[in-house]
Structures are given as structure tokens and as C-alpha cells.
């Protein structure tokens, strides 16, 4: 029944897609205005055969949380190793190539990116070891007017925080709702739940498979269309629903839907910082197989909507999102992730670029409610609220230093969980981002 409903939704969306293609075939877009277009296409007839690019993010973080009974849980430790409360790290170090392999034909472009940084993609911690990983490898075919086709491994159409390029992400850490509800983890049989540990060498990490990193392997139909000063963008995608792992582990495919409408204040501007007011909505649905009992499957749904405004000196972004099924219960709890619980959360953030200076001030509030409505049992309702104040100093267009301080207030209705969460406190983070 559920399957039939999903199929009908997909067919309706496909029909809409085809309609859009027909309606807007004669209305070319500005082609460089949003994340789907920036990441999935190249400028027509002047893209390089192979443009080398990437970014590096050396980072320092210090967690000021207190232990409970001398022991710590992952939110009080610095990832991805989760051994201690302060650490230097190279969170991201990515290098890739993009362009059009046959420059005479602008209808084909490609995008490949590798991750050498130390994070939840490359470092399995307790159950794995550091190894570089292919994070993106896709080909886009631009033959159908109004319906480009992208195939391979790439960021799926979804929430703004996950979809946006890291180089344009003004903070160091994701919001609680994005980190917990959207950034998918994939347990492997044999990885067991770990109790709170003392430091140093807490060794809490429990996932050997790479985190999803808002990516999937599949096929996406998408495009954007200009109507006056408005740019409308759609995407429909089918993917494995298995994150960055190359192949699927079950027969069901994940469905991703996306729509955004952006008012462009300056149509001639291009790139990630183009002045615009964007409204967007997205939906994801799929099935996951229980790593510990492969006869069981669980639905995983995520959907949300948001708005972003950018016109220097101001930036404002807000998103609200909802999740059902496969609700992450913390890095130390791989065996409790197979569930049908609900969760919801969102954030609002703003930035102020101080005129005639290189300084940018940022402030963000995010909230997340995990296991909504569950007042008893091993996975009770928990709340995560964070204020993050930050400052960016832009040395130039490609290099900046970011200083963030997050004030976190977490709690749970279940005393043993709350005992740990109530002492989650400040988190200081310093990071340099260099894009090349």
C-alpha cells in the first residue's frame, strides 16, 4: 500500500517534470545560481576539459562539557575519533577534477572529488581505520531541454545545509538536526553499543562504514528555468539509499524530490554568493535493512522546507525538517538506530558582512527533538538546543578563518540519558578554509 502511494507520488512528479520540460524548453536559465546547477553542470561552451579544484580545512576544537561519573558520551568529545575533548584535525582535505571531457560538446560534463581529510567518511574509529574515500563521481547529460540527467555518486537534492558547498558554509559544525537527523550513519554487523567512557582514549566511534555525507549513488533529473527575475529549479532522483557506498544492500531505491524558487536581485551575478531570496522544499523516502538482522526492513523518511536570503551585507537562512524511521541515537549506539521513531527540528541563522571590511559576523540557533513523543524505554525523547556565535575573517575570496563558539543545552526525559546530556556545554572551534 505504502509502496503504491510512493509510486503514485513519483509518477505525478515525473509528469510534472515532463510538463516543466515542455513549458520551459525555450527559456534558458542563468545556469549558475543554485547548488544543483553549480555542482551538476558547467558553463556552456567555456568549461575546461579538466579543472583541478578542492579545499583544505585545518581545524582546532575544544569541548567544555563535564563528565558524568567520570565518563563521557560522543557529544562531549571531538570527532571523528571521539577520544578526547580537544584536538587539532584536518577535517576536510578534498581534491577533485571537473569539466567537460570533450569541449566541443557542452552537453556532457563530469565531476569527481576525493576526500583525504579525517572525518566520519574516512575514519572508522574503533571499528575501522583512516582511508581516503571517493566522495563524488558523476556525469551529467544535458541533452533534454529542461531535463538534465546526472548519474553517479553526488550530493542528493535535499536540505540546504547538506546540499550547499562547504566553501560557502559559514560555520564549522553542522546544526544538531542536520548532524543527527540528516547525516546518515550506516551500522555494520559486529559493531556493538558502547557505554560512556573515560578520557583519554575513549574510542567511542562505532561506525566502520562511511557516513552518508548527504550523498547517494543514483540518477537525478533536474534543471532550472528563468522566468523574469525568478529562477525555478526542480530535481527528482532515485538512489541506492546507501550513502557513499558504491552499491546497494537491498532492492528498494530511495526517492528524492526537490523544488526551489529564487528571486534574483541581480541576474548577471553568478556563483554561490549570488544575491537572491530562495524558497525551497524537499522530500526523501527509502528503506533500510537492519544490519543485525537482514530479514528486517525499516522505512526512512525525511522532508522539510526553508528559505534563504542573501544580499550583502545581510544573510538569513531558516529551515524546518521532519524525520521518521532510522532515527540516529548517538554515535555510541549503532544497534538502536533501526527504529520507527520520529524526530523534527530546524534552525535560523543570520550573517552580517561588515561593510568595507573583511569581517563577517554570524549567529545561529538550532533545535532538534529526537524520538518525539516517546517517554519511556531505551530510546526516549531528547532535546538538543544550540546557539552558535561565529566570526569569519576573509583574507580573500578563497581563504578565510572561522571562529565559532557554541552554547549547547541538551536534555532527555529519561534520567540515565539526561545525566549525560545535561552536562553537554560549550564547544569552541577554529578553522581555516582554503579553496583552490
Amino acid at each position: 500500500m505504502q509502496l503504491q502511494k510512493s509510486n503514485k507520488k513519483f509518477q505525478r512528479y515525473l509528469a510534472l517534470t515532463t510538463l516543466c520540460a515542455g513549458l520551459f524548453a525555450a527559456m534558458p536559465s542563468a545556469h549558475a545560481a543554485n547548488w544543483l546547477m553549480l555542482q551538476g553542470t558547467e558553463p556552456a561552451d567555456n568549461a575546461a576539459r579538466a579543472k583541478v579544484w578542492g579545499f583544505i580545512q585545518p581545524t582546532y576544537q575544544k569541548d567544555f562539557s563535564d563528565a558524568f561519573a567520570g565518563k563521557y558520551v560522543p557529544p562531549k568529545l571531538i570527532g571523528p575519533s571521539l577520544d578526547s575533548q580537544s584536538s587539532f584535525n584536518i577535517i576536510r582535505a578534498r581534491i577533485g577534477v571537473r569539466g567537460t571531457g570533450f569541449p566541443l560538446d557542452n552537453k556532457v560534463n563530469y565531476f569527481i572529488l576525493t576526500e583525504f581529510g579525517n572525518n566520519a567518511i574516512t575514519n572508522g574509529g574503533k571499528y575501522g581505520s583512516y582511508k581516503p574515500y571517493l566522495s563524488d563521481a558523476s556525469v551529467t547529460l544535458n541533452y533534454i531541454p529542461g531535463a538534465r540527467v546526472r548519474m553517479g555518486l553526488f550530493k542528493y537534492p535535499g536540505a540546504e545545509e547538506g546540499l550547499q558547498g562547504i566553501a560557502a558554509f559559514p560555520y564549522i559544525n553542522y546544526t544538531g538536526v542536520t548532524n543527527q537527523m540528516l547525516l546518515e550513519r550506516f551500522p555494520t554487523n559486529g559493531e556493538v553499543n558502547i557505554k560512556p567512557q573515560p578520557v583519554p582514549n575513549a574510542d567511542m566511534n562505532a561506525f566502520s562504514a562511511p557516513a552518508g555525507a548527504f550523498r547517494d549513488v543514483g540518477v537525478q533529473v533536474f534543471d532550472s528555468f528563468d522566468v523574469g527575475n525568478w529562477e525555478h529549479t526542480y530535481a527528482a532522483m532515485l538512489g541506492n539509499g546507501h550513502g557513499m557506498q558504491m552499491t546497494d544492500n537491498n532492492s528498494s531505491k530511495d526517492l528524492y524530490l526537490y523544488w526551489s524558487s529564487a528571486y534574483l536581485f541581480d541576474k548577471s551575478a553568478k556563483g554561490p554568493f549570488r544575491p537572491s531570496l530562495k524558497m525551497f522544499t524537499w522530500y526523501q523516502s527509502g528503506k533500510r535493512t537492519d544490519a543485525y538482522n537482514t530479514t528486517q526492513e525499516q522505512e526512512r523518511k525525511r522532508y522539510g522546507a526553508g528559505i534563504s536570503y542573501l544580499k550583502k551585507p545581510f544573510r538569513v537562512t531558516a529551515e524546518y525538517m521532519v524525520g521518521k524511521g532510522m532515527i540516529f541515537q548517538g554515535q555510541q549506539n549503532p544497534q538502536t538506530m533501526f527504529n520507527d521513531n520520529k524526530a523534527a527540528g530546524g534552525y535560523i541563522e543570520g550573517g552580517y558582512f561588515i561593510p568595507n571590511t573583511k569581517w563577517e559576523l554570524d549567529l545561529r540557533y538550532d533545535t532538534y527533538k529526537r524520538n518525539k513523543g516517546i517517554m519511556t524505554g531505551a530510546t526516549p525523547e531528547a532535546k538538543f538546543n544550540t546557539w552558535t556565535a561565529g566570526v569569519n575573517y576573509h583574507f580573500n575570496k578563497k581563504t578565510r578563518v572561522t571562529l565559532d563558539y557554541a552554547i549547547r543545552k541538551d536534555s532527555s526525559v529519561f534520567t540515565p540519558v539526561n545525566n549525560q546530556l545535561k552536562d553537554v556545554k560549550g564547544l569552541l572551534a577554529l578553522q581555516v578554509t582554503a579553496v583552490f
Partner: protein
Amino acid sequence: MIHLSRITPIALLLAASLAASGLAQANPNAETVAAAIQAKPFAQTRVALQISDGSAEKQTLVLNVAHNLLKFYGPDKVDLEIVAFGPGLRLLFKGNANTQRIQELAAAGVRFSACDNTIAAMAKQLGHPPELNPIARIVPAGIVRMVELNKAGFFVARP
């Protein structure tokens, strides 16, 4: 979630796309250099700009140079022709990312010439002639056009 059988409509769309790639439409030949000069009798400065590189930076640069010349001398006082050949012909492909700028420059009197030798060479690689911006005018050979423009008194530059 959705099963693989649902991918069929997407495959059909993809197939339709391959059939939908447009056919090249022939552009008219460029006027002779003498006729071009006669059409701009009040021009005191004549400049021929060569674009033979396909990179985004070179495309932007040649358009910027044309814009700056127009701005400095004034559209009536300068005669400008951009000659595209080799990989530089990508500038004059239909749908190029700079199409709007090209249209604006053409409206201000800038001529855009496309090398027929390059078109023929690209047609061999593509299997069909490249679709060009309707503004482009065909010249038999880009380098010959540059020589002829130079002989006629044009200052020749390759930004």
C-alpha cells in the same frame, strides 16, 4: 521508496533527449573587409581581436577588451571585429555562457566572425557542424581574415 521498474520513464526521457539534439543552422557569410569598413565610415580606430583559445578566462577577456574599447572610443568612433578560430570558436557556439554579452556587443556594432576551416574540422569530430550563435558570420579562414583586416589598417590584438 521505489522499485527499479519505475526508472523506465526516465530512460524514455533520456532516449528522447538523444533524439532531440538540434540540427545546425547555417550562418550567413561575413561581408568583405572593404564592405565592413564602408559600413563604419566615421570610425577613427579599427581593431581586430583574435580569440583562438577556448578557456572561460580568454572568452571573458576578449569580451572585456571589446567592451573597454567601445567605452573609451564610443561605438561610432571604433570599428571592432572579433575573429574566432580554433578552440576559440567555442565563444560563438549557440548557448555559450556569454551569449548575452555577445548580443550586447553586437548591438553596439561589434562584428563576430567564425572560421569556416574550424567549423569543418569540428564537424568531423562532432559528426555534424557546431550550432553557432546567429550573430556569427562565416569567414573562409580566421587567420586569413585577421591578415586582411590588418592589411586594411586594423590594429590586430590577441588578448
